[in-house]
C-alpha cells in the first residue's frame, strides 16, 4: 500500500472506475484538462480522452440534468459540483428528477448509475458560501444514497462502491481533509459497503457518532474524556442515507448514551433524525438524553468560524454532561 491524501485517493478511485468500465464519464466545471479546482480529476482527460472527461459550461442545473439523461441512457456519469454550496441551482434536477426517475416510471427508467461528487464543509476560512454542510436536505428525499468518507482509504472504497451502486449517490467530500488527511490506500480495486457504519473504536460509557471531518473532532474529544476515565465508543456513520440504525442502536444499547456531532445547523439537521430513531429503538436503555453538538442555527460565518464550529472542546463538555446526567 502507498500513502495518499484524500484527493489522490479520489483520483485513484476515478482512474480505477474508468479503467474498469468504459461507460464511466467524469465531468463538471474545470474538471477537464485542469483537473478540477481541487485537482481531484487530474490526468483523467490525458488518460481517457476528452470524450470521457470534460469541462462543462458553468451551470449546475445543466450538469445534473445532463447527467440524469446520460444515466437514464445507461452510461455511468460521475458529475462534479465544484462546491457543495453550489449544488442548490441543481436542486430541482436532483430532488425531482434524479431521485424519482425509477419510481415514477415503474422501474422502466432509472438514474441508478449516476454519482454526484461534491466537496463540502467548513474549517477552511471559506465564509458562508464555501463552508456549508447540506447533507440533511438530501437525507429528506427518498430515492438516492448519501455517502461521506472520513479519510483517504474510506474515500476510495466508498467512491468505487458509489459509482457501481445501482442507485444515484451523492458523494460528499470533506474538503478540509483533502490535503490534511493522509493514509495508506491500496492501489488496486476495492469497495467498502454503502449504508454501513464503521465502528472506529469500541468503548463502554457513551457512543460518539459523527461523519466526515467531524470524526476527527469526536476522536479528539474522546481522548480528553478517556483521561477522566470515560470510555467512548466512536462510530463513523459513513452513509447518511440509508443510515445504519442497527449498528448505532446496538452501540447505544451497550453504552446507554449517545452524542451526535455535525457541522450543519442543529435545527432539522440529520442528528435530529438519528435522535428520534434511537429514542424509539433504545428508550429503555438510555441513561441520559441524547446529546447533539452541532453548528449554530445561523449561516456559516467567517470571522467567528472557531466559535461556530462544533469543536472537540464543546464535544468534550457535552460528553461530561451526558455521563454525569
Amino acid at each position, binding site marked *: 500500500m502507498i500513502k495518499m491524501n484524500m484527493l489522490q485517493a479520489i483520483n485513484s478511485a476515478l482512474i480505477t472506475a474508468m479503467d474498469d468500465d468504459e461507460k464511466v464519464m467524469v465531468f463538471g466545471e474545470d474538471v477537464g484538462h485542469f483537473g478540477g479546482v481541487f485537482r481531484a480529476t487530474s490526468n483523467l482527460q490525458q488518460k481517457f480522452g476528452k470524450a470521457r472527461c470534460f*469541462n462543462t459550461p458553468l451551470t449546475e442545473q445543466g450538469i445534473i440534468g445532463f447527467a440524469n439523461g446520460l444515466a437514464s441512457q445507461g452510461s455511468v456519469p460521475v458529475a462534479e459540483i465544484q462546491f457543495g454550496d453550489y449544488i442548490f*441551482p441543481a436542486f430541482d434536477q436532483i430532488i425531482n428528477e434524479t431521485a424519482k426517475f425509477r419510481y415514477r416510471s415503474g422501474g422502466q427508467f432509472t438514474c441508478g448509475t449516476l454519482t454526484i461528487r461534491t466537496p463540502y464543509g467548513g474549517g477552511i476560512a471559506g465564509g458562508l458560501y464555501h463552508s456549508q454542510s447540506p447533507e440533511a436536505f438530501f437525507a429528506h428525499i427518498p430515492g438516492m444514497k448519501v455517502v461521506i468518507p472520513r479519510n483517504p482509504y474510506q474515500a476510495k472504497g466508498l467512491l468505487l462502491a458509489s459509482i457501481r451502486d445501482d442507485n444515484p449517490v451523492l458523494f460528499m467530500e470533506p474538503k478540509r481533509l483533502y490535503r490534511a488527511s493522509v493514509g495508506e490506500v491500496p492501489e488496486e480495486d476495492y469497495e467498502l459497503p454503502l449504508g454501513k457504519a464503521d465502528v472506529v473504536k469500541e468503548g463502554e460509557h457513551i457512543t460518539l457518532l459523527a461523519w466526515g471531518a467531524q470524526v476527527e473532532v469526536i476522536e479528539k474529544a474522546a481522548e480528553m474524556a478517556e483521561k477522566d476515565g470515560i470510555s467512548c465508543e466512536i462510530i463513523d456513520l459513513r452513509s447518511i442515507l440509508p443510515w445504519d440504525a442497527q449498528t448505532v442502536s446496538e452501540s447505544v444499547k451497550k453504552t446507554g448514551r449517545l452524542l451526535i456531532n455535525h457541522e450543519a445547523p442543529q435545527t432539522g439537521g440529520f442528528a435530529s433524525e438519528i435522535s428520534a430513531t434511537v429514542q424509539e429503538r433504545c428508550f429503555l436503555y438510555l441513561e441520559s438524553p441524547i446529546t447533539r453538538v452541532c453548528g449554530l*442555527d445561523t449561516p456559516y*460565518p467567517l470571522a467567528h468560524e*472557531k466559535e461556530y464550529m462544533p469543536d472537540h472542546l464543546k464535544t468534550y463538555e457535552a460528553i461530561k454532561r451526558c455521563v454525569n446526567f
Partner: protein
Amino acid sequence: MKDRNHLFDVGISHTVNIIDKGTVDIPMLQILQPDGSAHSDADMPDISQDTAHKIFQTMHYIRVLDERMVGAQRQGRISFYLACSGEEASTVGSAAALSDNDMIMSQYREQGALAYRGYRTEQFMNQMFSNKLDPNKGRQMPIHYGDKALNFMTISSPLATQIPQAAGYAYGQKMAGNQAITICYFGEGAASEGDFHAGLNMAAVLSCPVIFFCRNNGYAISTPSSEQFCGDGIASRGLGYGIKTIRVDGNDVLAVYLATKKAREIALAENCPVLIEAMTYRLAAHSTSDDPSGYRSKEEEQKWREKDPVQRFENWMKSKGWINEEQHKQFIEQTRQEVLAQMKKAEQVDICAIDDLVNDVYDTPPWHLQEQLSQLKKHISLYPEAYPKTAGRIRHD
C-alpha cells in the same frame, strides 16, 4: 412596440432557410486603437477633462490596490483576493457612465466600479480584514463588498444569482418612478447559469430598465470561452431574448463609456433592458488560489498585455495633454502608501462582538438563537484561550 403576435407575422420562404452563427455578425465598438490613438471616424464620447481624469485615476488606483492585496495574500495577511487586471476599462468606464442613483449589482471583479463610486481604501480594507468596521460584520470572504449609501448591492458568491434580481430591482425602480436604472455585472461563465436566461427573459418581458453588463474575459477559472459556449458570444443571446445589444471593446475605456451612456439612455427612456458584452481578457489569475500556467500560455497572456487598457487610455490622455507626469507619479506613490497604512490599521481592529454571530439572521434573534448564544458564551468563558478573538470581550447578560 411590436404586436404581441409578431412571431406569427413572419415572411414565408419555400426553400429551407438555415440561419447559423455566420449570418448574425455583431461588431465591436472601438474608439481607441491599441496604441491609444483614436480612430479618425469614431463616434467620440462627450467626456470632460474632469471625468477623464477621474477614470484615469481610478484605473490606476485599483491596479495599485490589486497589486498590494495579492501581495498581502501571499504574506498571509488576508485569506483570499481577486484581481481585476486587464478589465479596468470595462468596470471603470461603465461605472463612469452611470448616475450615482443607479444601482450596481456586481459579481466580484468590479472593484473599479466601486472605487469610482467613492469607496475608500479604508472601507476596502475593513471588508477584507473582516473586522468589526466591515459593513458585512465579518461574515463574508474578502472582496464581497457592499455599500447601501453608494447604491452598490452586497455581493453574493453563488454566480449569476444577481441577474434576475437586477431585473426585479429595476422593475421596482420603474414602478417607484425613480429616474434611475440598475446595472448588473457578470462574467461570460456565469452567463451559462439558468439564472442568466431567466433574468434576461424576465427583464425583456417585463420591460425593466436594466443594463446587463457581461465581462467576457475569455476564462471562467480554467475553462476557456470555447468550452463555455458556441455561437456569437453572449451578445447574440441578448437578441434571442429580444433585448437591445451592444458589443464593445472592453479594453477601450472610451468605447465602454460611450456604450454604457447610450445603453443607460435607452433603458431609461424606453423602460427596457440593454445587454452589453465587453470583450476583454483576464490578465490576472482567477484568484489567489489559482495558477493559470496550468491552462494557458504565457504567449497568450503577453498578446493581451499589449492591449493593456490602462496604458491605452494613458496614451490618449497624454495626447490630449491631460496628464501631469509629476502629479501622476505622486498619486501612485500616495496610493501605495495609503493602501499600506490602511491595511495596517484594519489589521489591528477587532472582529465583531460574538453577538453578531446570531444578529441579522432574522430582524431580531428568536429564542433558539438567544439560547444558543448564551450557551456559546458560557462555553467560551470556560476555555478563553481556545477562542482568543472573542473571549476577552464576552459580557454575560
